[in-house]
């Protein structure tokens, strides 16, 4: 047995095959990007432990994640906010974690996406479990996991094929995702979710920006819209009472230690906005929340600067609009003395 020959053959073929794999996907116009994973969230969450009174933490769902741009915020205020908003998640478990597991008493900006904020407090429900899993991951993270993440960053930043995102996007190119694209017949009655493609790029510090393709390619944007409509139709009715109670209790505790909370309603448009008007109307939800919370609050509909903003896929702003939204929002907040700590 000549194992030396075998290892040389294996090495050469492996290098050639992986290089070809990488080049193929680059030729398909894919680009290297970080995965929006729990370890990245945990990296941002860790900053809260040492954050001061003058720091700002952003919580919320994907709208607060896409629409509030970290670098623009830093340019306008001189300090970088800690971005902890998460896609498809209720902000309540994260706010609860900050109130009960840290001494942070600075400013928390909470993006209110009504369909998620008022969704549920049931631990097994998707929007709750998603956020709680990040909190749990942070609490239980091992040194090995931290090291793995640090080692994976340069690979993720430079290699397209490192795309095994926790989100399991339909256009991921790891083996499991590629196999998921194969469909034979229609055995199950479950119609299944429409294909859900990645439409945002995340970077360090944790910041999400919409991919340009979502703005320029209407057909692509429409695939995302189909997913929002699918979620809208399949979502259970909101649970306003328990979500409000849960939030207000934590808010009271946070206020008691001199913490500041600001509520922000980011833009939506088209069918998604119509659905929100019907399912979680402003009058019955946002307005009640603001009334009960007694904190500074900003709804995009109330400001002329934001009325012209349109979301390419009906729920999030393009990068340019997100930068504009962030800088204008800060101006409004400053004028309103909402950011006094900064």
């Amino acid at each position, binding site marked *: 047995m000549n194992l030396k020959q075998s*290892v040389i053959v294996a090495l050469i073929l492996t290098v050639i095959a992986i290089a070809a*794999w990488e080049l193929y996907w680059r030729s398909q116009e894919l680009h290297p990007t970080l995965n929006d994973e729990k370890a990245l969230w945990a990296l941002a969450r860790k900053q809260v432990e040492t954050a001061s009174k003058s720091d700002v933490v952003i919580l919320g769902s994907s709208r607060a994640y896409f629409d509030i741009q970290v670098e623009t915020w830093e340019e306008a205020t001189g300090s970088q906010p800690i971005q902890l908003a998460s896609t498809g998640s209720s902000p309540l478990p994260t706010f609860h974690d900050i109130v009960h597991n840290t001494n942070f008493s600075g400013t928390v900006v909470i993006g209110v996406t009504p369909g998620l904020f008022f969704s549920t407090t049931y631990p097994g429900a998707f929007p709750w479990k998603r956020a709680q899993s990040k909190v749990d991951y942070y609490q239980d993270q091992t040194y*090995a996991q931290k*090291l793995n993440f640090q080692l994976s960053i340069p690979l993720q930043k430079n290699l397209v*094929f490192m795309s095994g995102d926790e989100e399991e996007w339909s256009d991921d190119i790891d*083996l*499991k995702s590629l196999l998921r694209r194969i469909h034979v017949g229609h055995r199950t009655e479950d119609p299944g979710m429409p294909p859900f493609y990645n439409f945002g790029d995340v970077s360090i510090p944790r910041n999400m920006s919409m991919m340009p393709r979502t703005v320029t390619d209407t057909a692509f944007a429409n695939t995302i819209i189909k997913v929002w409509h699918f979620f809208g139709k399949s979502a259970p009715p909101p649970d306003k009472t328990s979500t409000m109670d849960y939030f207000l209790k934590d808010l009271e505790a946070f206020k008691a230690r001199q913490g500041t909370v600001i509520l922000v309603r980011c833009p939506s448009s088209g069918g998604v906005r119509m659905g929100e008007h019907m399912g979680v109307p402003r009058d019955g939800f946002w307005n009640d929340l603001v009334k009960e919370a007694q904190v500074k609050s900003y709804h995009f509909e109330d400001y002329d600067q934001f009325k012209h903003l349109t979301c390419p896929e009906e729920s999030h702003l393009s990068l340019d609009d997100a930068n504009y939204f962030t800088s204008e929002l800060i101006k409004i907040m400053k004028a309103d003395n909402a950011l006094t700590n900064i």
Partner: protein
Amino acid sequence: MLFNSLSFILFLVIVLILYYAKWFSWTGKKRMLLLSSYVFYGIWNPPLVILLWISTMVDWTAGQRLAKEDNPHKRKFWLLLSMFVNLGFLGFFKYGDFLLENFVMIMNAIGIDFQAQPMDIILPMGISFYTFQTMSYTIDMYKRKIEPARTFLDFALYVTFFPQLVAGPIVRAKELISQFYEEKKATANQFIWGLFLLTIGLFQKIVLADTLLADTSDTVFGSDKLLHGVDAWIGTIAFSGQIFFDFAGYSTCAIGIALMLGIILPDNFKYPYASLGFSDLWKRWHISLSTWLRDYLYIPLGGNRHGITRLYVALMVTMLLGGLWHGAAWTFMVWGGLHGTYLILERLQRRFLPFEITKWNGLFLAFTTFSCVNITWVFFRARTFETAWNMIKSMFYFQTEGVKILDTFTIIKVSVIIAAMFLCHWFMRNTSMKEVSLKTSPYVLGVIWAVMTVLIVVAQGSGEQFIYFQF
């Protein structure tokens, strides 16, 4: 630290550089290996290294005393001390909540209103493996079967050797400690073969277990519906493949990594899914555990030396405790009980209905054994009896009215993989990878190696923990 992680690749490269550099003497290299093993374990949860230290200290002391002591009472004391500490750790960390839960249940059943908060004890990774390994040393010392370890360093390294620390193989002292006495260095062929084994192990874990099979078994066993028979069977065979590739993958990695250091670890799996009956199965599946249970439980219980009834009792008790070793739940006991029953039935068949195994009925027998093993996996994988019972109902009543949750492609994918695995086990049952590789062209072997490596890279994996870490 997981073998299927970037941090392990970095760790292994550093260990290999330090091991093969000429900076250290053999003692220095062993110290480095010991320290690396503590880092390997402690990077998961540093305080739990203390348990390893206690286990090491207790069994080292017991071993030294047993080597010198002739007084039978004192010898028994040292043996019992070792068993008390090791089984005490197991009992507290692994079975604490289970015992409490059952105590509460019994109290309530006899009319005493008693409630207790679960203790939520963290389960130290691999505790079942290293406690069994250290206990085997003390028991063998007690029985005067082995010589004591020459130095504390050799013994500590035996307990902690990182390739097999958290999920075996459970190595006996005579197989491993003596290898630490003389300087070890892998030959070029050993090193490359070790690397090849590491690749195969990672391929089994990342590609076959985690990427191709895990989702199907998770979907089926996670469902709260009464499933269609096809879905129940596919979910079960998917788990059957997943647990084999996961565990055999770990063992293959461990053997390969040790070989890269010039240390030889015993085989832990020998194509078990082509076993001809259940005695054969337990000579091929998790060999290091089954021989441990044979030597330290089945034989002391009487084995086959005290008549047929005692033999059956010993078999059943061994398998029930073997089941409980895997997890603190009654479902694991049922799994062990089923294996015990199969073993007893097999002995009865040999006694009353003996037949000769030929090439043709052999394949049928192997398939029958594999099918019966699959039934036991239902209890092993299901978290509750309700889930297990629903699965069994679906599998045997063939619920055509049951819910279909798997798509056609998944059914095809799992069926092809499991059929290929079964046939591979059948054709390999009387040979070994080493023998086959000797007959294979080095170029073909290189191509196979490259295909596995590329698939590992494409699959990436999400650093899923090995199933057996929780045992």
